[in-house]
C-alpha cells in the first residue's frame, strides 16, 4: 500500500507539467509557461521605453537602447572587468570567512544547549547592529584597504549561515543520533554521516542568503 502511494506521489510529481504542456499546446497559458522569461523581459523593456520617452531626458531616465550600449561598452572595457574580478574576489573571500565561522559555530550551538546559552547573547546583540554602523569602526580598525569591505561582507554573511545551521542541526530527529550511537558511530562519524547530510539543505539556504547579502553590501 505504501509502495503504491509512493508510486502515485512520484508520478504525480512528473505528470502535471507534461499534461499541462499537452493540454495547452498552442494555448496562451502553455505559451506563457514556456516563454515566461521573454514575456517578463519584454514587459520591462516596453514599460522602460515608454517611461523614458515620457521624460525624454537622459539624466532622469536613459532609453533602454542607450543603457544596453553602455553595458556592452563596459563589458569589453578591461578596467571594468578587472574591477569586477576584484569585487567578485572580495565577495567570495568574505563569504568563505562567513562559512568558516558560521558553520562550525552553528553546529556547536545547534548540538549543545550549553554552548547556545553562552554564545546566543553575544550573537543576538551583535546581529542587531546596522551594517552601516560598522563602517566608521572598520575604517579605524583596518584602514582604507580591503579590510573594511571584507569585514562587512563576512558580517552580513555570517548570521544567515549561523542561524540556518543552528536550525538545521536542531531539527535533526534525536532517533538519528540514537541510531548512529547504538551502531557504534564515533563523534566524527556522526558529524560526517548524520549532522552534515541532515542539516546540509538548511546550511545551503543560509549560504545562498549570505551570498546575495554579500553582493549587496560590497558596494
Amino acid at each position, binding site marked *: 500500500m*505504501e509502495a503504491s502511494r509512493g508510486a502515485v506521489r512520484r508520478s504525480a510529481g512528473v505528470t502535471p507539467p507534461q499534461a499541462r504542456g499537452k493540454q495547452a499546446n498552442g494555448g496562451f497559458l502553455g505559451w506563457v509557461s514556456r516563454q515566461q522569461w521573454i514575456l517578463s523581459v519584454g514587459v520591462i523593456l516596453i514599460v522602460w521605453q515608454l517611461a523614458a520617452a515620457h521624460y525624454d531626458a537622459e539624466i532622469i531616465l536613459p532609453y533602454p537602447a542607450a543603457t544596453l550600449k553602455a553595458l556592452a561598452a563596459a563589458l569589453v572595457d578591461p578596467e571594468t572587468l578587472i574591477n569586477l574580478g576584484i569585487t567578485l574576489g572580495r565577495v567570495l573571500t568574505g563569504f568563505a570567512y562567513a562559512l568558516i565561522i558560521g558553520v562550525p559555530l552553528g553546529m556547536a550551538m545547534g548540538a549543545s544547549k550549553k554552548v547556545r546559552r553562552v554564545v546566543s547573547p553575544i550573537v543576538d546583540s551583535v546581529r542587531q547592529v546596522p551594517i552601516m554602523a560598522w563602517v566608521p569602526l572598520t575604517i579605524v580598525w583596518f584602514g582604507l584597504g580591503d579590510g573594511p569591505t571584507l569585514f562587512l561582507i563576512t558580517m552580513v554573511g555570517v548570521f544567515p549561515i549561523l542561524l540556518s545551521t543552528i536550525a538545521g542541526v536542531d531539527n535533526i530527529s534525536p532517533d538519528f543520533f540514537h541510531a548512529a*550511537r*547504538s551502531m557504534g558511530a564515533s563523534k566524527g562519524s556522526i558529524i560526517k554521516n548524520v549532522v552534515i547530510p541532515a542539516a546540509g539543505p538548511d546550511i545551503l539556504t543560509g549560504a545562498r542568503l549570505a551570498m546575495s547579502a554579500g553582493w549587496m553590501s560590497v558596494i
Partner: protein
Amino acid sequence: MSKLEIKGVSKQFGAGDTVHRVLDDVGMRIAEGEFVTLLGPSGCGKTTLLTIVAGFQHADEGVVLLSGNVTDGPGPDRGFVFQSYALFPWMNVRDNVLFPMRQVAMSAEDQERRLAELLALAHLSGKEHLYPHQLSGGMKQRTALVRALACSPEVLLMDEPLGALDYQMRMLLQGELEAIFMRERVTVLMVTHDVEEAVFLSDRVLVMGLGGGRIVRDLKIDLPRPRQRKSERYHHYKDVLTDALRDAMGGAGLEALERLEMGAAQAELPPLSVEEIEVGMMGQ
C-alpha cells in the same frame, strides 16, 4: 547466567511536586536466545525501560547487565529497531545496512558477504540502490531490522517495531520477523501494546502495569515454531494476556484508550485496529 539482566532500575521525570516516578525498582532476567516481550498499556514506562537498556538515557537507580557486565551508554552490542525506523534518508538501502559495519572496521569482503546475507534474509536483494522514501513501510521495517542485526549484537531491542504499519501488513511481517529470528538466533527484548504480536513472536511475555512499571505477569508462551495463529492454545494465551493487560490498566481504561488514540495521532499512525480498540476499552 542471564544474557541481559535489569536490576532495580528506577527513573523519574519532573521535579518538586510534579515528580512522576515512571519506573520504580524494576528488574528482570532474559536468557540467551530468548525472545521476551514487554507488554503494557501506553504510559506504563515500557519504552522508557527499553531506552535505558539501550543506553539512550540513564536510570536514576539500578543497573543493566549485559553478559554480566554493567552497560554505560549506547553501543553496538545492543541493536535497536525504532518505531520510526530511523533509516538515514540520505543513504540508500545498501549504505544504510553497511553503516554499522563501517563503524566497527569490518573488512571489505566481510562487509559485502554480510550485506548479501542480510539483504537475502530481508527479501531486499535487488533493492539495495533504493532510498528510504522509495520503500514501502514493510521494506523500511525490514531494512531497519537487518541494519540492527548487521554486527550481530548480543541483544536486539525493538520499540513497537510494527507500530507504524497497518493491520494486514503487521500480520504479514510478524511471520517474516519470526523467520528471520529463527535463522539469526538472537536474544530479543521487544516493547509492544499489541497482544497478538506478543503471543505470535515471544517465548516469554512480561506484562507491565501502570504506575512504577512493575511486572504484573510473567507468562511463558510454550508453542512450537513457526507459530500457528489458529491453534486453541494460541487463543488461550491471547485471552490470558488480554485479561492481564486489563488488570494492569486497573480502572484507567478510558483514560488509557484516550492516551492510545492521542499517541497514535501524534505518531501519525494509521487508525487503530479493532484489536487495539478492544484492548483499550476492556478496562472500562
